[in-house]
């Protein structure tokens, strides 16, 4: 195939494009239908369960908002929700703070082979999630790598292991941070990479120090990437239930665990639906607010 097929030929009279093109609906139909039937409709079912229109038990179908009311007015569930939000916020902020210098190093310090290094950084993210959690279980356990290393090297007596390592809020936050850190550097890298260096040169010529250019130019221009990075951690972690159930114990119990328990052992599908939908509303609201920063397409093509 040669380049510029159209350019060298005499301009043929352009065939008028048919306005009502049948192909688009044909192409659209299948993906659209799939997403509606298996994504949108199921969420509507959660809505129906949350107000009692549908129920797990036969004969109890009537519209009621009491579950919503109870949930929103000082329930333990709401307290747990804010606790999870707090944990998730701390993790997201810390992870972004860590990822920023990593991305800055790759994008702006003129290092060679930055794409290879980027791949090195991100590769752990692309291996199994559960297995990365497993690694920390092995390390933090009271019969685990870290404690036994401390005993062995004599830094701590075997009678007093550090028992709070695993099955704690700390463990959940550590593991979530570990799991998401590599991925979060990516959107920040993309926004720093697209920064026009001439702006920095101009600032420098005009007598700005590096710190001033960073504060006035680099940081503001990379904020969309930072916002995207933040959302990329916050959204999946706030509803997380796998990591807390493996390393969280009692103090690391999160909102997602509560939802999972209501559907599993609790068999209270109505309350579970309310909790799920509430989480969805919060996440959807945040996504809308941040969507102008997210620019998902740009992030991945980088």
């Amino acid at each position, binding site marked *: *195939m*040669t*380049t510029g097929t*159209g*350019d060298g030929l005499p301009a043929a009279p352009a*065939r008028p494009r048919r306005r009502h*093109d049948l192909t*688009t609906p044909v*192409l659209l139909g299948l*993906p*659209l239908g*799939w997403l509606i039937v*298996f*994504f949108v409709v*199921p*969420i509507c*079912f*959660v809505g129906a369960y949350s107000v009692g229109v549908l129920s797990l038990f036969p004969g109890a179908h009537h519209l009621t908002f009491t579950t919503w009311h109870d949930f929103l007015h000082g329930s333990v569930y709401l307290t747990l929700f804010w606790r999870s939000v707090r944990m998730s916020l701390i993790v997201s902020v810390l992870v972004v703070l860590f990822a920023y210098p*990593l991305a800055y*190093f*790759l994008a702006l*310090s*003129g290092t060679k082979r930055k794409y290879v290094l980027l791949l090195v950084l991100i*590769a*752990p993210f*692309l291996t*199994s*999630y*559960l*297995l990365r959690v*497993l*690694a920390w279980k*092995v390390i933090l356990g009271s*019969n*685990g*790598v870290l*404690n*036994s*290393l401390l*005993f062995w090297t004599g830094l701590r007596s075997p009678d007093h292991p550090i028992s709070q390592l695993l099955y704690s809020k700390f463990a959940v936050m550590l593991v979530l941070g*570990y799991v998401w*850190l*590599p991925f979060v550097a990516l959107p920040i890298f993309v926004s720093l990479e697209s920064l026009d*260096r001439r702006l920095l*040169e101009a*600032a*420098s010529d005009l007598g700005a120090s*590096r710190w001033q250019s960073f504060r006035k130019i680099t940081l503001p221009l990379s904020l969309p990437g930072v916002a995207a990075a933040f959302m990329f951690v916050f*959204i999946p972690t706030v*509803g997380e239930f*796998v990591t807390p159930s493996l390393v969280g114990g009692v103090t690391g119990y999160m909102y*997602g665990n509560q939802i999972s328990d209501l*559907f599993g052992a609790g068999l209270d599908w109505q309350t579970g*639906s309310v909790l*799920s939908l509430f*989480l969805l509303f919060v*996440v*959807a609201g945040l996504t809308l607010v941040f969507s102008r920063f997210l620019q998902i*397409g740009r992030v*991945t093509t980088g």
Partner: protein
Amino acid sequence: MDVAVSRNGARILRVFFFLVVVLLYAPILILLIFSFNDSDLPTFPLSGFTLEWYRQFLHDGELHTALRTSAIVAVLSSIGAVTLGVLASLALRRRFKGMAAFSALLLSPLVIPYIVFGISLLLFFHSVGVGLSFATLTIAHIVLSVPYTILVLVPRLEQIDSSLEEAARDLGATRLRTFRSILLPLILPAIVSAFLIALTVSFDEYAVASFVAGSQTTFPIYLYGALRFPSRLPEVIAVAVVVMTASLIVVVGAELGRRHAEGRLGEIEPS
């Protein structure tokens, strides 16, 4: 003089970067070490070299079934997701009314908390009377993978000069023929990488699978179960090492392959 970072700053950043990389890989390395350790517990001091855990893994029928289930679901759901992704990406190349809403819908599985999606499918299948099975799991994984395929395919399609297609059409090729002979070869590398991403999404997915897999045991479901029994820990560590190594090879290979292929395409194509 570098305007972005001083020489000392660059040095500090470099040290920080490699320190973080070491910390990221350390847990994986620890798994590797203990997969050969001759002890039931992952503790120091190391007690000797053994291949026992790998031998157990080779003879664990339950694990093999789980791996096979995951592999089949991953392949089927990836085929489904790539098919839907190609159709949707082709549609997104045209301009039509409601395009913004359409693409928002297609990408929304990226931002839904997986637990909420798992539960909504559970309620849905329960209410319409569909039993949970292989099929329901595959359906769920297709939904989850579609956005990733679109994110890979759309940028690729945008790079392709539409005059190539117009020329083919002017020369009398049908739409299907144009797609097969012009577009398909050009986006094939992107299709392959979309397929690989969909494979890894499905193969690694636990949260949604735990709600819709019914009695099927996928590899993540097997792992999750095994993680609760300390006696099986050494074997799981060996499995972890094998799976992580394999997935690192696939991922790095796919990325290098994609860069190579797109680099070549970039040369023969006006951009």
